[in-house]
């Protein structure tokens, strides 16, 4: 065999091995009984969205979602196995049964609900204004002036709203949220209109600035639940009951306040019906 043929044969073998390893195996969603008998619940959390989930100083996954997931696992009496998931793969992971449910800012939308099922809400998701305190940038009307520059992250949903509702403001489009926050802190922009749930956590590095965060409920509030595989009714029903108990005993609100430096901008009422 020539060197080239040997190389080709080796490459083909490696490709075949890689294909075997990487091909998704069919995995069925586990029912409540499967999870209980297995003694472990697998939960997807998103460490790219701190403080929903993050890696702590010991490089372990920590944050709001792991804390709520741990409370659920305790109620269930099983071990908790946290699985880090990113935004693109979080729905495929639960839809394929690789995890039992997913957290990770799972805003409930009719489009997503075609692919997975949702529990009752865990927390709300709110939009509003981030600005420096005492400058009067606390309403959409106050922002809608040519002398106001809004620092925004390129490609986010708020931009279309700004073009429609705040057309007179200047817009400074940056690449990410830390840069946006820095731009406001340095006076390059006066405010930002965007999601505000994580903002108090994100503004921690700018302690010299007195921030003002104002919710704008007229933009619309969305709700995040736990995402479970389609038609996995036994697990979803149990999770709904567990979430009702965690809402009523204050576990979820306490975890939220601990990680997000304040209460939810829109409280989630605990409903016994689902």
């Amino acid at each position, binding site marked *: 065999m020539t060197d080239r043929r040997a190389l080709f044969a080796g490459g083909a073998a490696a490709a075949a091995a890689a294909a075997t390893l990487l091909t998704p195996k069919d995995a069925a969603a586990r029912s409540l009984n499967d999870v209980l008998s297995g003694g472990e619940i697998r939960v997807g959390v998103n460490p790219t969205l701190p403080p929903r989930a993050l890696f702590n100083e010991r490089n372990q996954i920590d944050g709001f979602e792991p804390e709520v997931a741990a409370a659920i696992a305790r109620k269930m009496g099983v071990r908790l196995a946290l699985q880090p998931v990113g935004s693109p793969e979080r729905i495929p992971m639960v839809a394929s049964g690789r995890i039992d449910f997913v957290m990770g800012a799972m805003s409930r939308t009719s489009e997503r609900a075609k692919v997975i099922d949702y529990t009752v809400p865990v927390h709300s998701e709110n939009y509003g204004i981030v600005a420096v305190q005492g400058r009067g940038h606390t309403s959409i009307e106050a922002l809608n002036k040519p002398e106001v520059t809004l620092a925004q992250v*390129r*490609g*986010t949903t708020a*931009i*279309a709203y700004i073009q429609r509702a705040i057309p007179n403001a200047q817009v*400074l*489009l*940056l*690449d990410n949220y830390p*840069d946006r926050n*820095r*731009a406001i802190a*340095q*006076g*390059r922009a006066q405010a930002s209109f965007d999601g505000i749930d994580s903002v108090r956590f994100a503004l921690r590095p700018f302690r010299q600035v007195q921030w003002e965060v104002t919710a704008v409920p007229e933009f619309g509030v969305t709700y995040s639940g736990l995402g479970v595989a389609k038609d996995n009714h036994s697990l979803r029903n149990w999770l709904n009951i567990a979430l009702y108990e965690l809402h009523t005993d204050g576990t979820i609100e306490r975890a939220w306040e601990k990680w997000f430096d304040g209460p939810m901008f829109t409280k989630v009422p605990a409903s016994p019906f689902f």
Partner: protein
Amino acid sequence: MNYTLIYSQVTGHIPYLLGGAVLTLQLAVISFLAGWAIGLLNASVLHFGPRPARLAVQGYVTFFINTPLLVQIFFIFFVLPDAGILLSPYAAVAIGMSLNAGAYLTEIQRAGFQSLRREEIDAATAMGFSVPQLVWYVVLPHIAKALYPPLSNQFIIQVMTTSIAAIFAVEELTGRAYNVNSLTFRSLEVFSIVAVIYVLLTLVCSVALALLGRWLFRVKARVF
């Protein structure tokens, strides 16, 4: 590929993208001219200046060639405001790109200076030329023809490099492409159109530079 290309959702944004291309060209011209001036000054210092000045120029060149442009502009954009210097996004990017180009153009022009014959410099010095006069009347006419092709290449690189400005809120061609993409979600269509605009932009620049070179210095450059 299961993707259906639908250009009609993007073509309406082409005038907006072309506006970004104008800004791209403007940024490239400004940063190239400023970088050329910095490079000429530095090359003069390296050739005729005292040792401390030469060391300072070498330090500048080493720093700017060995750090990414992104980091340099980030420093100007986000670190200088903490020292009380708040530049507009356009100014911050233009200054960053000029300083960066200045380092590369120092090296290019230094090589041109080294190609000069010692006798020419000695003759000019004997005639009482000051260093600026020496550079302007003796050095530049000699090295212009030899340096024109690498300087032209550097200009084309500057055009490409402007895309980094999108990160710093400058709405040049790439920045506008991101904006259109976030409106239409038609990434393939948007960025293929932007690629064509970049190709046209560099081709037009190459032809213009080739004609200018032929007219000014009789440099026969190949565009295609």
